[in-house]
């Protein structure tokens, strides 16, 4: 899902507590997943709570799709905002069964406002077999899935999620991530997702706000944010790009699948997806090497024509090269020596050899 630039959420908040302040002015797209990303204490959760109206700033401003939720003294209280909110801990009502938890919000919206049926929320999160249980008897992962379905059942116009995976162990995270990816693919509404996990953000986000010290340091589409050499995200061992592709062709002889994007095609081991299926890839910067010519005598299958955009210092031994492949930014982390031997300069045409990719969905 390419991030479209419909500034559907327009928010300005300023808040000062002893030892913490929040000062943000952001616009988020009206579709897809926007990640609020940053270290703990950077104000991500506070910002999300401001969006929900759970935190009230003295003179903030918030508009969603042209509708004003907060402006000066005018403040729409949380229970009148058409939003869904998923807390870090599932926070199911312990006195109600799973079914009654799901119905709690559903009963409180007007019939005309019901765009998501309870059945489709139950189906989307795979919790049909849990309906008659009480929350005490659910695993952490199941509880969080119920909480997400409960938030969806109110047919929100925006879904806010506060690190829904942070309280879960790795196995539970793996259990929930596919459901979150389904939300990403199937929901028509914007989703604002707080996370401090680069992996979750790479898998889910289309748009990203980088938070630090209570401020939104930078924001933009995820592809740009991960490759902006002036941001810390594009540096270090874990730096890499995220590319949205579609399945272009299956090669049954060699058992490969070609994934297409604007910069070319990438072949990976045969995938079980249908043609046109959307697949997100992650290419680590350290797994791209550069060559001046397209070599026919290499085992590397995926070679993308690109041009050098920018070169930045990384370590005394490494540089980070930002490339442009058909409008899609790529990052290559190579040694300073290689860069000198190739004579890399901005504007140069080059071939990016992709040694490995990770399929994120």
């Amino acid at each position, binding site marked *: 899902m390419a991030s479209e630039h419909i500034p559907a959420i327009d928010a300005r908040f300023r808040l000062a507590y002893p030892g913490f302040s929040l000062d943000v002015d952001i616009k988020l797209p009206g579709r897809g997943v926007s990640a609020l990303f940053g270290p703990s204490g950077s104000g991500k959760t506070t910002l999300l709570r401001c969006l929900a109206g759970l935190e009230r700033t003295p003179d903030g401003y918030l508009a969603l799709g042209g509708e004003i939720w907060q402006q000066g003294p005018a403040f729409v209280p949380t*229970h009148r905002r058409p939003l869904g909110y998923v807390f870090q801990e599932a*926070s199911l009502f312990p006195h109600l069964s799973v079914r009654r938890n799901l119905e709690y919000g559903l009963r409180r919206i007007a019939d005309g406002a019901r765009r998501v049926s309870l059945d489709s929320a139950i189906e989307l999160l795979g919790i049909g077999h849990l309906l008659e249980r009480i929350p005490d008897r659910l695993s952490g992962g199941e509880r969080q899935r119920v909480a997400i379905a409960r938030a969806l059942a109110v047919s929100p116009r925006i879904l806010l999620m506060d690190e829904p995976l942070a309280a879960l162990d790795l196995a539970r995270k793996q259990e929930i991530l596919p459901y979150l990816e389904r939300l990403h693919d199937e929901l028509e509404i914007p989703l604002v997702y707080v996370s401090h996990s680069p992996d979750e953000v790479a898998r889910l986000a289309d748009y990203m706000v980088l938070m630090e010290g209570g401020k939104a340091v930078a924001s933009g589409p995820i592809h740009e944010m991960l490759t902006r050499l002036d941001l810390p995200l594009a540096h270090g061992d874990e730096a890499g790009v995220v590319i949205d592709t579609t399945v272009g062709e299956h090669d049954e002889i060699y058992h490969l699948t070609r994934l297409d994007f604007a910069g070319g095609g990438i072949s990976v081991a045969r995938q079980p997806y249908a043609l046109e299926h959307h697949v997100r890839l992650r290419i680590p910067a350290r797994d791209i090497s550069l060559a001046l010519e397209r070599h026919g005598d290499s085992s590397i299958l995926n070679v993308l024509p690109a041009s050098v955009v920018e070169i930045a210092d990384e370590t005394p031994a490494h540089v980070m090269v930002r490339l442009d492949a058909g409008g899609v930014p790529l990052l290559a982390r190579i040694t300073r020596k290689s860069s000198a031997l190739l004579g890399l300069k901005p504007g140069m045409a080059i071939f990016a050899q992709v040694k490995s990719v990770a399929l994120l969905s």
Partner: protein
Amino acid sequence: MLTDSDYSAIRLTLELAGLTTALLLVIGTPIAWWLARTRCWWKAPVSAVVTLPLVLPPTVLGFYLLVAMGPNGFLGQFSHALGLGNLPFTFPGLVFASVLYSMPFVVQPLQNAFNAIGDRPLEVAATLRASPLDTFFSVVVPLARPGFITAAILSFAHTVGEFGVVLMIGGNIEGKTRVVSVQIYNHVEAMEYAEAHWLAGGMLAFSFLVLLAVNFFNPQGKRVSP
């Protein structure tokens, strides 16, 4: 065995305790909710005033109530203005005094129960479109149910055991203000130890059952729900 006068005292005591408990649940709930939620500076003084009957000798409370309910006291003038007439030595006067006297036994368990719920369930309810009042009845009351039961039991039991306050403002009028505790006192004064035994033994059993019930509704090591 029990005399007619004993039965009348028992009936009156149960009426007084029942009515007091019902009134206290209505009056004490908003007070406890406010005390549990507010960060306002006068929370501490209000809390102290509500708790006063816990430490004050009942005769002191009774004395001030008697003065205030008198024809020149502010409560007396107020009750006359409302057309209720005199409060001292009447059943309504006893109810009024009992409500004050048993207030901490309702407010404290409720306040503790409300505190234990915390902010999160309220926030969750708000994100699910529940207004604050709706949230109170659909989330807070069910989650605080053990607190309500404890409050009701303690308030009922405490009112049943009331003696000093009753004597100060209610006196000893059969069928109107003579409750069980006063009746026992009368029996002992008249050297009717057998009759006193019946009533006192009944109160002992009653009190034991009450404490048993409180423990039953508030078991130690309560289940913790996420």
